C-alpha cells in the first residue's frame, strides 16, 4: 500500500474519521462524510462497527450501498431494529451511542458548533443574515452520544472566538464539569477533523488541541487559519496521506457516484 498524492480534502477527512472509529462499537451516523467514514471503517479495521441512524435504523449492514439521507431506505435494509426518531434518540440518551459524528458551519475553541444561523443572537434571530438548516439531530448527538467526532472545513471564517449561535454544545465554556453541570450526558467532543489536521480537547480546559497534522500543513499554517489560539500537543504526529487502497475503497466501492466525496 503505497501513499498517493492525488487525494482531496474530503478524502483525507473520511480516512481520518474512519480511523478514529473502533471495532464493535456503536456509531450514530449523520448525513454525508460520516456515512462514508463509517463504511470505510467497516471495510477496513472495524467490520463489527454498528451504525445507528437518527431516522430509526439500528445496526444495518449497509450492504445496498451508500445512503444519501439518514432516513434513506438503504439505512433500513437488513437493520436489526427499525423504529422512528424518538426510539433512536431515546437509545442515544440512554447511552447506546459510543460515538457520534457532528458537523457545523462554525466552531469555537471548546468544540461548540453552530448550524442554525449567521447573525446576531438573540436580536437578529428572527431575521438572520444567513439562515442555516438548523440543528436536526446534531445538538441531540452533541448532548447524549458518549464521545463525539466533529468535522469542520478549516478556515478562519469558521473557526471563531465567538459563535453566532451555539446549536450543538461541546465543552461549553471549558470549566470543570461544565457538561455535567449543564445537564448533558457523555464526554463531549473527542476528536475534531478538519481539512488541515486532527485535534483533541485538553481535559483540564476543554480547549481545542492540535494532535496530528495533515500533509502540507504546519502548526503555523493551521494557527493562521484559526480565529483563536490553538493548543498544540507535545508530541505532534504527522497524519499519513490516504493509501491507494483507502482511496480505491472510497472511489470505487463506497461512493462511486461522488455523492458526498466530490472527485
Amino acid at each position, binding site marked *: 500500500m503505497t501513499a498517493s498524492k492525488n487525494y482531496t480534502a474530503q478524502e483525507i477527512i473520511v480516512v481520518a474519521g474512519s480511523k478514529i472509529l473502533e471495532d464493535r462499537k456503536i456509531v450514530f451516523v449523520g*448525513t*454525508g462524510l460520516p456515512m462514508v467514514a463509517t463504511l470505510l471503517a467497516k471495510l477496513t479495521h472495524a467490520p463489527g462497527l454498528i451504525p445507528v441512524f*437518527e*431516522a*430509526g*435504523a439500528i445496526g444495518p449492514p449497509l450492504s*445496498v*450501498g451508500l445512503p*444519501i*439521507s*439518514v*432516513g*434513506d*431506505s*438503504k439505512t*433500513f*435494509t*437488513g437493520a436489526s431494529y*427499525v423504529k*422512528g*426518531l*424518538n*426510539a433512536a*434518540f431515546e437509545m442515544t*440518551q440512554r447511552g447506546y451511542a459510543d460515538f457520534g459524528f457532528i458537523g457545523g458551519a462554525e466552531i469555537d475553541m471548546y468544540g461548540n458548533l453552530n448550524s*442554525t444561523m449567521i447573525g446576531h*443572537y*438573540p436580536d437578529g*434571530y*428572527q*431575521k*438572520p*443574515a*444567513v*439562515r442555516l*438548516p*438548523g*440543528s*436536526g*439531530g*446534531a*445538538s*441531540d448527538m*452533541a*448532548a*447524549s452520544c458518549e464521545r463525539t467526532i466533529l468535522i469542520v472545513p478549516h478556515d478562519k471564517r469558521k473557526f471563531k472566538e465567538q459563535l453566532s*449561535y*451555539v*446549536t*450543538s*454544545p461541546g465543552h*461549553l465554556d471549558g470549566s470543570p464539569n461544565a*457538561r*455535567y*453541570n*449543564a*445537564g*448533558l*450526558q457523555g464526554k463531549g467532543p473527542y476528536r475534531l477533523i478538519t481539512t488541515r489536521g486532527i485535534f483533541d480537547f485538553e481535559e483540564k480546559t476543554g480547549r481545542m488541541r492540535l494532535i496530528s497534522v495533515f500533509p502540507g500543513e504546519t502548526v503555523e499554517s493551521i494557527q493562521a487559519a484559526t480565529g483563536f489560539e490553538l493548543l498544540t500537543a507535545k508530541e505532534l504526529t504527522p497524519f499519513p496521506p490516504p493509501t491507494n487502497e483507502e482511496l480505491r475503497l472510497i472511489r470505487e466501492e463506497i461512493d462511486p457516484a461522488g*455523492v458526498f466525496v466530490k472527485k
Partner: protein
Amino acid sequence: METPTQMYWTGLSPDDAREALVNKDKSMRDKTMTLKEAVARFIRDGDNVGVGGFVNIRQPIAITHEMVRHGFRDLTLSWQSAGLAADYLAGAMMVDESRFSIKRIELAYWAHESFGLSPMFRYLAESGKIELEDWSNYNMSARFKAGAMGLPFLPTRSPVAGDIPSSNRTRIIICPFTGRKIALVPASNPNVAIIHVNAADKYGNCTIRGTDATCPEIAMASAHTIVTCEELVDHEVTANHPKDVGIPFPAVDAVVHVPFGAYPGACRRHYYFNGDHIRRFHAATAPMHKGGASDDLKSYYDEYIFGVETFDDFIQKFPAEKLMADQAAESLNCERPA
C-alpha cells in the same frame, strides 16, 4: 435560560387537545375520501399543521399540493426535519402571499441533506417573513410524543445547553430526583396532521415501512389526521401484520389513496428520490434570491400545481420511464422479492 418567556400554546393546549379528542368520532368506519375533500374539511386558516415524514422521505407531498391549490393563510407548521413538503408550502407563499401564507414555523431542520439547502427557507427566514422557533430533532419528536401521550411536557437531556433552549419554550429545571439540570419541552398538539404512509385500510390503520419518522406521534397528538397512502388495502391485510401498523385507526380522520404521494421524494419499497426534479424546483427560486421577481417560481406552480386538478395529474407529467426508473432504484435498496 432560567427565565423563559411567558408560556403560550400554538395549535391546541393540552386541555383543549384532550377535549377535542374526547368529543371526536373515534369509531371504526370507512374514512376514504378525495384529497380535495379531506383538505377542505380538516384544515383551517391559522391552524398548526404537523408535517409527517423525515427530510425527503415519505413526506406528505400530495397533501401539500392540495393545500396550495386550496389556499390557506397564517398557518403554523411543525415538524422535526422537513424537505420538500415544507418547500412546496413555502414556495406558494413566495409566489402569492395573499393566497397562501405561513405565519410561524416550529422546526429542527429544513434542508435536503445531499440535495443542499432549502432556498425557500433561506428566502423567507432572511427576509424576516416568518416567525421561527428552533428545536432539535429529538425536541420536536419528544414534543409530538408528549402530545400523543396526553402530557403537557416531556423531559429531555438534549439540548439543555447552548442557544436552542432560549430560542424556544423549553424550561430547564433542577430534577427533583437527581439535583441535575434537565430540560422540559412542552407538548405539541397540532390542529391537523398531514401524513403519507405505505399502506392503509379504510379505517385508517397505517402500515409504515422503514422509518416511522415521528408520524405515529404526530397523528396521535393532533386533533385531526389526514393520511395519504401508496396502497389502500383490506383491513385483514393490516390486521395480519399488526406490529407493522404504526398509526391506529382512531387517530385518523381521512384516508386518501394517492400512489406516488411522497414524490419527488422517496418512499420505502415504492420509489427512490427524483433528485433532478428537486433541483429543478429549487432552481425556480434563483431569481428571487437575487432580488428578482417570482416569475420562474410562479411558472413552476402554474405548471405543476395550479395547472392540474389532482396530484395524479402532477405525477402524469413525469415520463413513465422516469417513474419506473425511480421504482427500480428503490427495489435495489430493499433487497427482497416482489
